[in-house]
């Protein structure tokens, strides 16, 4: 694959300067660090969340290695608390929440609606720097003594522990505002910057998904902000509202925390839904089944997700009637979610499916998300939850959603838009192998955790009874396989930047506006202001010639 690259390079006439793209239009450190271009900010986010993901993954591997033996292999019990907290906090706040909107969303949303940039480019850059500040603060918190509260900061323990809770709280506050500003920007962009002819129902479903996400980001995240501030105040001057020693109520903290953090689950997963919606359509060369249903189900999820936070607190002490209501409403969220899953499957059905690597990741998502979603319904059932609460069953469930679904969708989107972003292609063969390894490794990690959880293995424990040893060991081996798959993916993606083949102008045959601009896009996204005259996903408009032509 490296042999023909010099040949192509020499074949280019020297008189013809390379086309100006957003990547080569200006250079130097400040042209990136001070850029207002949503595409460059997207790339910076991609690097950032990528590093955060690898760091969080490393902590995960340490957790799994420690659990190789019932008495624990690597850490003291107290150190173990820190390692799993680091894993959770890094993954949730630095990776899963910002990953898709910040990187892929930033890159493709303005392209998809036919805008020159997001509506508020300076705010977009600020959002990235807030993310960076949050990442630095989180790292600083490790140096200042670490934190061992779990990513949930439950009171009263988070008020009493002698670790750097205020610093990590500040990090979460700052990261929250980074997330808010991204969401705010996307809402304004979708409302005000759509190209002529881009009606609401001609918007790609990725845009609908990011729009719904943004509503949640703007309306839920401030509550997390005030919650972590109040925890910090408790530690600084003992305001007392969460501290039972001062007449406060720790359950109030849980209400505040989950009022944000349940919608946050959908802040994480809705963009993943958006990616999958795009991919199953493009790689099946077929309009999406139930376009409007998927669009409205995103909004429905956004609204209902505000009403289900209590299902995290079935054992925390709330009234029986509240528990009935929360359990019932939890089932309700399953309906719009199932509508999406069925619509995707119906889209693939009898489509002309091309098993490109992004599509393989998307298909893996469909399988894993079905399991992740259905186990959520199991956990939403009141009486079953009382049995399974705080066991590995919960851990496995949300990893099927967080890691298996969201991260796989992120990988799928990354592979799908990689040629668009860089004009380079990675090795499809290696990509397919990596997808297979990740799929196998992931299931091997978490299926044993479902079994252990249903038998009573509690989460967050540093040690366990010997009966669980084979399950934990299988899970650890799975995690190592998963880690190898991710390492392979990082390898071939980086390799493609150095020596990858040129991508095609329209690598996969997409018809949304992001594929109607040169690859990689110019600085202002479009050479001519786009006018939208076709319905979305109308594959009769596909320009097959652009799928053959090399990107310039």
């Amino acid at each position: 694959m490296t042999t023909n690259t010099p040949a192509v390079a020499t074949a280019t006439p020297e008189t013809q300067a390379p086309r100006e793209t957003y990547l080569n239009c200006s250079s130097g450190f400040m042209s990136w660090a001070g850029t207002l271009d949503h595409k460059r900010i997207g790339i910076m986010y991609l690097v950032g969340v990528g590093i955060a993901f690898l760091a969080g993954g490393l902590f995960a591997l340490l957790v799994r290695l420690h659990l190789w033996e019932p008495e624990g292999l690597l850490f003291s019990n107290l150190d173990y608390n820190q390692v799993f907290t680091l894993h959770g906090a890094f993954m949730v706040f630095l990776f899963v929440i910002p990953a898709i909107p910040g990187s892929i969303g930033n890159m493709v949303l303005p392209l998809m609606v036919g805008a020159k940039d997001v509506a508020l480019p300076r705010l977009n850059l600020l959002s990235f720097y807030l993310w960076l500040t949050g990442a630095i603060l989180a790292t600083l918190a490790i140096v200042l003594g670490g934190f061992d509260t779990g990513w949930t900061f439950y009171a009263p323990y988070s008020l009493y522990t002698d670790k750097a809770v205020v610093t990590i709280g500040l990090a979460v506050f700052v990261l929250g505002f980074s997330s808010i500003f991204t969401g705010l920007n996307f809402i304004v962009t979708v409302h005000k910057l759509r190209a002529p002819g881009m009606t609401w129902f001609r918007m790609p479903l990725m845009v609908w998904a990011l729009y719904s996400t943004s509503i949640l980001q703007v309306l839920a995240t401030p509550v997390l902000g005030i919650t972590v501030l109040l925890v910090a105040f408790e530690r600084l001057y003992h305001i007392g509202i969460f501290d039972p020693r001062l007449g406060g109520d720790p359950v109030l903290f849980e209400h505040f925390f989950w009022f944000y953090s349940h919608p946050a689950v959908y802040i994480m997963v809705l963009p993943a839904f958006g990616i999958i919606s795009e991919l199953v359509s493009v790689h099946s060369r077929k309009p999406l089944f139930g376009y409007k249903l998927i669009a409205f189900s995103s909004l429905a999820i956004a609204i209902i997700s505000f009403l289900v936070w209590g299902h995290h607190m079935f054992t925390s002490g709330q009234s029986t009637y509240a528990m009935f209501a929360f359990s019932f409403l939890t089932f309700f969220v399953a309906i719009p979610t199932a509508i999406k899953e069925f619509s995707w499957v119906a889209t693939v059905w009898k489509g002309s499916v091309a098993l490109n690597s992004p599509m393989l990741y998307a298909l893996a998502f469909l399988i894993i998300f079905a399991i992740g979603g259905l186990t959520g319904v199991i956990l939403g059932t009141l009486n079953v939850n009382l049995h399974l609460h705080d066991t590995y069953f919960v851990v496995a469930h949300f990893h099927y959603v967080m890691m298996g679904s969201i991260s796989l969708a992120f990988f799928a989107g990354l592979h799908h838009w990689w040629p668009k972003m860089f004009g380079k292609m990675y090795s499809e063969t290696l990509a397919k192998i990596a997808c297979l390894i990740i799929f196998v490794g992931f299931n091997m990690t978490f299926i044993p955790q479902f079994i252990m959880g249903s038998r009573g293995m509690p989460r967050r424990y540093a040690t366990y009874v010997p009966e669980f040893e084979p399950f934990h060991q299988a899970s650890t081996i799975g995690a190592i396989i998963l880690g190898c798959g991710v390492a392979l993916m990082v390898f071939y993606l980086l390799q493609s930047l150095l020596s990858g083949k040129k991508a095609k102008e329209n690598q996969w045959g997409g018809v949304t506006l992001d594929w109607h601009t040169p690859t990689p896009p110019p600085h202002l996204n479009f050479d001519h202001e786009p006018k939208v005259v076709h319905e979305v996903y109308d594959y009769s408009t596909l320009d097959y010639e652009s799928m053959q032509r090399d990107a310039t």
Partner: protein
Amino acid sequence: MSHDDHHAVVVPAPGPEFVPHEVAHHFSTPVQEFQSGKLGFWLFLATEILLFGGLFAAYFYFHEVYPETFRVGGQQLDWRLGALNTSVLLLSSWTMAMGVRSAQTSQKSKTLMFLGLTVLGAAIFMVIKFFEYKAKNEHGLIVFSELFRPFIENPDGTGSLAWFQDYHGVMAGVPHGHMFFAIYLTMTAIHGLHVVIGAGLIIWIMFGTAKGRFHAGYFMPVDLVGLYWHLVDLIWIFLFPLLYLVP
């Protein structure tokens, strides 16, 4: 930065003392720019309300749990000073609205005067607030010098706070007397921080006004800072009765 190959839309200045406004590169019209800024700012204000919403929720919850504490605690605040501060903020909201109106009608010196009066209102508010805090300090209800001292654990499992001394024993008969003052301090301090930020923004806008950047063709920043100031006022309008007047 090196991409001025497109034609920027420019809004002309209404007079020699003003500068024309160049619409940002990614907008097609000044109206689109204005609407985008405004929608974005309203969304930001929604996040501010939700941020305070957490504090209001805490207030209502503990008002329900310890009604006596909140009744007696509220009596320790001077409602006359609170009412005075409410009037000051309401007046400053009016001067802010007049400032925005003057900017919209390209009346530069009038804009500067009204914005200056608004900053004055903010300053008066903070001075009155300072004297209120000082009184709390003197009565030992919020001892500011002891605020960040560690928690003192009593043998019976309860705790004592260095910053809550209650020299005159006014809260002696009610449970967890510090709770009212902790919530009072947190809410008013965060609100006060917003007053200071708002005043800073207004001063920044005054510099722009002096340079002639804001006029009938472009007044968005003045408009948005005005919205922010009204929100600061609005939150106080809820804080005042809840903390000073509700029995």
